[in-house]
């Protein structure tokens, strides 16, 4: 099997698995328990918190553990607007966010908040001028993702942070798709809140992180016991936290070398695809992208058919966000970049990872060539090729 869907999820790294084992086997106490056995578990949570703080460049007390990227996004958005509800009701986001942010914004609209969805350029980058113009007195939160999950396109978060800081507006960035892929300390991006998720960087499922810059107004969201500085209730998932901390450590250790390796593999792949297959479009490729992601539109064919054609040949790719697999609408991200519904429908995401090698990509190019040729033979549409 050739797995080229690392933006959907990643395999658990053996070192992360090893880091989890003691807490699945011997040290299974509840970290809140008042005996030494409990303290060991508590110490593991705090050790993990320290490891992550170190990797992202913040204080341990600024790291909040929760159950995943989706929860981290929900906590950030709902926690900030709740904490600041007396200050205003306007939220600024983009048209290309992950559903965890987008649908939360929609839910907040139903609760009476006003949301601006910023457009993006043809290359999928949010426009700073539009962002600046959107800010008003009632703006309490800006949430713009760091790297897009479908295209890998990187948003100008440092610039946004400068703007929001000057305006006194809280800024959250969903860094689920950039964490561990860039040689960059996430807390130094300048955002007040940063989301990332264990299973997207070779850590376990069931753990997410929210970095909360000290002093950022944030109301608790999941209520119950006084875990996570009172910000997130629920017995701590010690094994997952330990595994995540190990994975983050590994990812940040290797981000630079692995980034170079993946970037050159990805760029070579795109060159090969461009050479082997006519009428393709590399979405967002003129913009800065995370090194592992390539989003390609194949004219006159349907993306789902390409996915199945490759699946049959043992290659795993997807049409976009795994969460919207059952959504018949063409990608909201590509549509926001100005692609026609048909072009968006013909798009496929290839996301490389630690285990990807050049031979995998050679095989993929060849399988892709056959599949697209077959589908174009069947297709009733003949675009520019006619």
């Amino acid at each position, binding site marked *: 099997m050739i797995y080229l869907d690392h933006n959907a999820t990643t395999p658990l790294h053996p070192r992360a698995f090893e880091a989890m084992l003691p807490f699945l086997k011997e040290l299974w106490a509840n970290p809140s328990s008042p005996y030494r056995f409990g303290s060991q578990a508590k110490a593991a949570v705090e050790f993990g918190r320290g490891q992550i703080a170190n990797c992202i460049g913040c204080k341990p007390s600024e790291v909040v553990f929760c159950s995943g990227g989706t929860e981290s996004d929900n906590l950030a958005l709902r926690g900030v607007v709740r904490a600041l509800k007396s200050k205003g009701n306007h939220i600024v986001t983009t048209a290309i966010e992950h559903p965890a942010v987008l649908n939360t914004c929609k839910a907040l609209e*139903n609760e009476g908040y006003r949301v601006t969805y910023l457009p993006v350029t043809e290359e999928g980058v949010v426009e700073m001028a539009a962002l600046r113009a959107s800010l008003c007195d009632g703006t309490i939160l800006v949430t713009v993702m760091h790297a897009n999950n479908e295209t890998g396109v990187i948003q100008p978060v440092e610039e946004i942070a400068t703007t929001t800081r000057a305006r006194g507006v809280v800024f959250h960035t969903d860094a689920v798709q950039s964490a561990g892929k860039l040689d960059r300390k996430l807390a130094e991006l300048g955002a007040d809140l940063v989301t990332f998720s264990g299973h997207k960087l070779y850590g376990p499922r069931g753990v997410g992180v929210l970095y909360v810059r000290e002093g950022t107004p944030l109301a608790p969201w999941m209520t119950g016991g006084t875990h996570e500085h009172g910000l997130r209730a629920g017995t701590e998932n010690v094994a997952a936290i330990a595994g995540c901390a190990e994975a983050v450590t590994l990812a940040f250790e290797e981000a630079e070398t692995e980034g170079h390796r993946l970037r050159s593999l990805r760029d070579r792949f795109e060159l090969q695809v461009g050479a082997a297959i006519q009428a393709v479009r590399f979405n967002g490729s003129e913009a800065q992208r995370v090194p592992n992601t390539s989003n390609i539109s194949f004219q*006159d*064919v*349907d993306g*789902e*058919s390409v996915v*199945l*054609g490759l699946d*049959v040949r043992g290659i795993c790719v997807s049409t976009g966000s795994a969460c919207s*697999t*059952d959504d*018949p609408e*063409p990608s909201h991200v590509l549509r926001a970049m100005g692609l026609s*519904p*048909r072009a968006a*429908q013909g798009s496929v995401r290839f996301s490389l990872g630690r285990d990807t090698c050049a031979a995998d990509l050679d095989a993929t190019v060849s399988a892709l060539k056959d599949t697209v040729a*077959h*589908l174009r*033979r*069947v*297709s*009733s*549409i003949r675009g520019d090729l006619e």
Partner: protein
Amino acid sequence: MNPSPDDSGANDRNRGLEAPAAPVISYNEVVLDHFLHPHNVGELAKADTDGFVVVGDSSCGDQMKLWISVRNQRIAKIAFQSFGCPGAIATSSMLTVLAEGRTIEEARLITDDDVVEALGGIPAKKRHCSLLGVQALQAVIDDWEKRGRAPPEQP
């Protein structure tokens, strides 16, 4: 007990609970085979074409072209082209297999259930794909009729 839910989205949810949409599409072997090796792909020569139609499903963006050649009230040749998901391709292919050699009268009776059944089933949310094929078949017969061939004689 079931208090009637209000309009805050609970209704959608409940419908969801009764028939959860499977987020992963699993096609069976027959469907896969028709996707990988569709029958009757292509177009008919102008001279052969007694009916031709283009239909589209605006909701999912799929499109299908269908050609028929009719001899003695019978579909002698049939050809299709499809742009769309694997379901669209496989159902189109199966539709042509079912229609080929049939009388116009018989072809008129082919339903989307027939197509799905012949394929041994198709994921629930891909059912609409089979409708497109059946719609195309009706439309292509309409086209053939419009082109002046007499409708079948009443027995």
